[in-house]
């Protein structure tokens, strides 16, 4: 759902750039407090995985395709602050190097996919896992549900931006966009849950949301395996 140039009004483009920049500054402060050394290479891996996996569009029927989003994956592995930055990095590179997503729409794309699909969805995830028992099973169930929701929410906010821009009326675009992304979100949820399931077994020490952060499930002390 990378918005190209031309879909958004100037004021929506400017406002969304403003929101993206403010969140960018706030997350730097947060990350500088919490982000530990051992996750640094994983930031590179996450960016590489999201970029590569986003290239593989899968059909959802009716001549339409969708692709992995990865915002929840980045936030779960790296925490919401660095997850947001990794998502923004991928979006910026797709826009600048590959002409995927418009340069005037980059603020909106970061808002939709990095903030709504990333940070906000991660907060929802953190609330849900607080209520659920701290087991791998419930962690993965929440991962699946919220990864799906993240894609749908991002598509919803994208539709709102198109509506506010006067490109297309809300009540026409919202059902179409969310309808497509209800299906696309399942693809994202499957991939994200599979990766998290692998990581919880192989390298639980490299899952920020599992072992390290406040407000996320810290059910057991996880030690780095050798």
């Amino acid at each position: 759902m990378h918005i190209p140039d031309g879909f958004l009004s100037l004021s929506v483009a400017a406002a969304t750039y403003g929101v993206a920049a403010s969140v960018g500054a706030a997350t730097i402060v947060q990350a500088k407090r919490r982000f530990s050394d051992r996750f640094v290479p994983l930031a590179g891996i996450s960016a590489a995985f999201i970029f590569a996996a986003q290239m593989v569009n899968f059909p959802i029927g009716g001549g339409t395709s969708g692709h992995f989003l990865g915002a929840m994956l980045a936030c779960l592995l790296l925490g919401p602050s660095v997850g947001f930055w990794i998502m923004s990095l991928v979006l910026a590179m797709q826009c600048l190097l590959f002409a995927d997503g418009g340069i005037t729409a980059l603020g909106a794309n970061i808002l939709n996919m990095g903030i709504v699909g990333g940070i906000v969805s991660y907060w929802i995830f953190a609330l849900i896992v607080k209520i659920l028992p701290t087991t791998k099973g419930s962690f993965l169930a929440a991962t699946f549900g919220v990864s799906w929701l993240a894609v749908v929410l991002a598509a919803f906010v994208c539709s709102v931006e198109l509506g506010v821009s006067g490109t297309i009326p809300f009540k026409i675009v919202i059902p179409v966009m969310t309808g497509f992304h209800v299906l696309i979100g399942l693809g994202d949820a499957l991939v994200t849950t599979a990766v998290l399931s692998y990581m919880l077994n192989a390298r639980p020490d490299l899952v920020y949301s599992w072992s390290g952060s406040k407000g996320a499930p810290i059910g057991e002390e996880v030690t780095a395996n050798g």
Partner: protein
Amino acid sequence: MDKKKSNRRFIVIALLACLVIAFFLSPLASSSPDGLEKAAENLGFLHLGEVLVWGHSLMPDYSIPFLGERSVSGMIAGLLGTLAVFGLGWGVGFALKRKKQTK
């Protein structure tokens, strides 16, 4: 096995997996329009996106210009893009990490 070695092994294997996805799976990608594009097409505002604001993309639409539209072009673009964001992502992580703490 000591921890440093196992970390290095994990990173190398994970990066290789990403490169395999970008190189070997990207040609299998569906070429149908994505959700937003299809919505724009169905609802009649796709033409609004036909403007050129930034014409300096090195690999527009995930292809290497001089290699044309062949799938090898997309495979190489995927490989280069994956390596680029891997390096930059590592850099972002490094720039954002917290200062050394006593713990």
